[in-house]
Every structure is written in structure tokens, then in C-alpha cells.
């Protein structure tokens, strides 16, 4: 168990990470103001994931943790991915249906044959 000897991260590294995170925040705001079409969201999420990784690795000492801890962290994200991917798989493959945005808020739900059902 001696491999779990506490690793002390120096303040210099913390400071570096802080600066990188602040730059990342600036970058994400800057990037958002440029029209990149669908790549806006991709870029924003890439920056966010990078920032998160830095926080986990250094602020949270993930880099210096035992393998078991790393496995636990990874499994959390893995399960999150299961939930997101499989649910979105349903939503992105419902080709045949009319889009929800045409239906929902307008309460006349009847399709058209004949006159509307309720006054």
C-alpha cells in the first residue's frame, strides 16, 4: 500500500493550471462570438473537457492517484456516456416522425382529416 504515498503538488503547478483555466475561459467566450456553425458547440465542449481534465488531474490530484482511483473516475464517465449515448441514439434515429417542434405548444393535436374534433 506504500504506493499510495501522498504526492504533494507544488503551488507553481497550481498557479500554472489556474492561468491556463482562466485563458480557457476567455477563449471559450471569444470562440462563442465567432460564427462557426455547428462547430461552435464542439469547440465549446472541447475547451470545457480540457478544463475539466486539468482540474481532475492537478487540482484533484487525479494524475497522482492509485490505479484503483483512476478506474473509479473513469467508470463514472463511462456510465455517464452510456446514459447519454444510448438515449440520444433513440432521439437521433426517429426519422419517420414529424418534428416535435411543429406539434407541441399548439394544442390542436388533431391531424387534418375532416373538421377538428373539439370546439
Amino acid at each position, binding site marked *: 500500500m506504500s504506493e499510495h504515498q501522498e504526492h504533494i503538488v507544488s503551488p507553481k503547478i497550481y498557479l500554472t493550471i489556474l492561468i491556463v483555466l482562466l485563458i480557457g475561459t476567455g477563449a471559450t467566450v471569444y470562440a462563442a462570438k465567432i460564427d462557426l456553425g455547428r462547430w461552435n458547440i464542439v469547440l465549446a465542449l472541447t475547451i470545457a473537457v480540457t478544463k475539466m481534465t486539468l482540474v481532475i488531474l492537478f487540482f484533484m490530484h487525479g494524475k497522482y492517484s492509485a490505479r*484503483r482511483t483512476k478506474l473509479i473516475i473513469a*467508470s*463514472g464517465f463511462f*456510465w455517464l456516456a*452510456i*446514459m447519454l449515448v*444510448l*438515449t440520444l*441514439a*433513440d*432521439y437521433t*434515429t*426517429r*426519422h419517420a*416522425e414529424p418534428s*416535435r*417542434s411543429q406539434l*407541441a*405548444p399548439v*394544442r390542436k393535436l388533431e391531424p387534418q382529416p375532416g373538421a377538428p374534433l373539439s370546439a
Partner: protein
Amino acid sequence: MSSSQQPPLSPQPAAEQQLPKEHYLNATYGIRSWLLTTDHKRIAILYLISVTFFFFVGGIFASLIRIHLLTPSGYLVTPETYNKLFTMHGVAMIFFFLIPSIPAVLGNFLIPIMIGAKDLAFPKINLLSWYIYLVGGALVLYSFATGGLDTGWTFYTPLSSIYSNSAVTPAVIGIFINGFSSILTGLNFIITVHTMRAPGMTWFRLPLFVWAHYATSLIFILGTPVIAITLLLAGLERMFHLGFFNPAYGGDPILFQHLFWFYSHPAVYIMILPAMGVISEIIPTFARKPIFGYDFIAASSIGIAVIGFIVWAHHMFLTGQSTYSALAFSFLTFLVAVPSAVKVFNWTSTLYKGSISFDTPMLYGLGFIGLFTIGGLTGLFLACLGLDIHLHDTYFVIAHFHYIMVGGAIMGYLGGIHFWWPKITGRLYPEYLARIAAITLFVGFNLTFFPQFILGYLGMPRRYHNYPPEYQVLNVMSTAGASILALGYLLPMIYLAWSMRYGKVAGKNPWPSTGLEWTTDSPPLTENFRETPVVGWEPYDFLHRPELGLLGAVSKKPVPAHGDD
């Protein structure tokens, strides 16, 4: 069965045995010493009392449901009341009995002892999770008492969030809070198994009960937060007119179902996996031989927990989810049948060339195999896309999941309670009465739920307070079975309570069995062992344990303990 010449084949307390002088039950006295205890065994007893309470609450609702369905037009209550009955039956049984039952009672009591630890890693958190359970339970009871709950235990929106007039809010908050009890229990088990094992207790010497609970805990910590947030969102919709799933805002009720089943399908495995763990202990003990395919049973527990997470949308084949997604989820659902089948085959093979006894836990164990097999196989009908369209939301589903949850989980729970009763109380229950109860339960259960398969195939929808007259014959059969079943549940309550005071003293290892829990006193000391045990034997190995006093056992040089993790 036993010939009169030979000593009885059932547990035989050594003559003149006494309870140990000091044990966890008499270590301290007074109500405070119980309510503020951090001893995992006492917390298990607290859980035992509280889940039993909820079991009878849910049971009363169930009886009223069955009586009501005696006649096609409904016999007893108004439609509104009937809807409340089945909802409250589901909520009480699932969230407050089945999910905590085996993990929080038997798991809590046994896991530290089985791995040779003095307690769980976080005893105070363990106590906290019982209190959280109580708070959640109290809120749910409050909801039952003040207007009831008529949304179905599934809380589908927008019925639950907008249309229902019953006391949904306190119930949802209660279940949300109760979720943290599950999370903390699961967290405690996982950390305990990782860090608290005794010297020599390697991962592959862990009892299968512990493996099953490890798998269950994975579901606790990975699934429960999702139901918590889901019900919270439904609650926010109801309380503050926020909209997440509200169709009036363009929200999608099917999203609620995705989130709900992401937890609630794995929750089925929370109920059944620990029962499988219990059966994996009972069968080798009463067949007196090592379990067949230890590695496969252990791996299948983890396999069920993991694959169980990627099958949830099979509850939603008819909601209008995409055809492709339905195909994928059906395929994955069939996959999860493989590890379940592996377990059944291995248990059955364990019986081969064993030395099998009739003892009550074994009756429950064998009953479990039969009922779980039927429950599992009928699950395939529902996993099958073409059939699910006809069977979905009919009594077929009701029958299927009662075979899993009552025939599986509760049979396992009762089997486990009987098996470890001597360890928990230090005394034996009356054997013949217990066998009668086990057989009564088995018969009553089948009579109650088998007709429901046919009802379901005939098309009788679930959650109906009245039904077309052609379904009556089967409903009457089911109700008749339920009365036998109810009797079968009352019986153990009575004789187990009786045996706490008057039962024969059991001794350390009455069956005998091989687990570490049987090497310590019955009932155990507060700190479980006098000194930290060192494990030098393989699991379920009777042959090399001469101290068990079995014919032909040989001693073997202890395998040196190597502490891998």
C-alpha cells in the same frame, strides 16, 4: 426421511450448548444504545424491523387488490382507491422493502464478518443511511395517509407532474431522500470490500454473497443518482411549474421514461442479485460441496450489473422510440439472459453428487431456482420485440416480475434469513414449521401468479380496477393463491419471533458451512472476531476443513496468504 437409527440429518445443537456470554446483542442496553449504534449488526437489525414493517404495509395493499379483483366489476373499493392501492403497494414494496431488504439487512450484517473486518468502512454513515431511510419512509407514509398516491410506482409524467390530484410531492421527495440511503449503503459496501478484507481474503476467496453485493453496490452508486434527479425534476414540474418533460412546453414525456428506467431497470438487479448471492451460499452448504464454477458465478454477477445498465429502454418499446433503438435494446436484453442462465446452470450442477439435506434454507434455495428460472425465461418473451407489443402492460408483465421479485428476491431473502438466523440470534428456528411455511409459500406463490401469465396473454391490461367477465376464472384462482401466500408469510413472522427467546441454542456453525462468519460466535461479538482472522482456505472447500467434523475431510497445508488487491 432419516432412519430411526441414525442421528437427525438437520442441524443438531451440541448438547448443553450455551449462548456466548458476551455478544453484540447484550454488549450494551437501552434504546439509546440501539438508536445511536454504529455496529453494523445492530443497524442490520434496525433495518430488519423497518423493512418488515414496510413489507406488511405493502402486503396489506396487495391483499386488498386481490380481494377487489374477485369480481369483474370490482368487489371492494372505488376506482380511485384501487389506483392508490396498487401504487402504494408498488412504492412500499420496491423502494422500501425489496431494494433495501437483502443488502441492508443481510448484507449489512454479513459483509464485514464474511471478509473478516470489524465493521464497515464508515459505520456512522451506515447509521446515517438508516435514518435517511426512515425520513424517506416517513414522508412516503405521510403521502399515503394524506391523500394517497395514484400515479403508479413508475410516476410517468405528465400524469404525475401535472394531472394527478393525489399527494405526489411528499412521495417523490421521500423516494428522492431514500435514494441517498441506497447510495450511502452501496458506497460503504464498495469501500469496505476494497479496503477492509482480512489477510488472505483475496478477491477470489470472497464468498459469492459478497461478489453479488459488490455488483449490487455498483448499481446503487451508478443508478440511484439518476432516479433521484429524475424524480426531483418531476417534483419541480409539479411544485414550481418548471417544465422538463411537460408537453405543453414542447417537452418530451418519453425523456422522463428514459431517465426513470436508466435506474429502475438496473434496480431489478438490485433486488435479484443479492438473492442470487444468498442462494450461492445456501446451495454449497446444504449440498456439502464446493460451488460449481465459482469464477463464472462471480463474473456473471458483475456481468449482470454491467449489462443490466444498457437494456433499460426495453420498457419503452411502445412509446414511439425509434425502431433502431428498440432493436438495439432488445438485442442487449437478450444478452443479459446469458449470465443469468450461467448462474442457474452452475447452481443446478452444484447439486450433482452432493450430500443434500432437506433443511429449510435449502428448500427456499431450490424453490428459488425453479421460480427464478420461470421468471427469467418469461422475461425473454418480453424482451422479444414481436411479442412485447402484445404482452406489454398486461398481466403477463405482472406475473413475470413477481416471479423475479417475489419468487426470486423474497424467496432468497427468506432463505437467507433462515440460513443466518442462528448467526443473527444465536438460536435455531423450529425446523418442521419452517419447512411447512416454505412449501406453503411455494404453492401459494405459483397459484397466485401462474394464472396471471395466461391472463396477460389473453390481453388483460394491468392496473385495471375492473375487467371483462371472461377474465374472472383466472382472477379468482389468483386471489385464492394469494390467500395461501399471505398465510405463508405470516407463519415465519410468528415462529421466528418465538425462536428468538425459545429456540434451541445453535452454536457457532450448526449446518456446518465454510464461510468466515461461521467461525465466530453466534451471535458474534460487537467487533465480530476476537482477533483478526487469517484466511488460509479456498471458498466453499469442505474437504480441507477437518475442523467442521465431516467424514473424510483432510487437512492441507494452508496456502500462504498473498495480499493482492
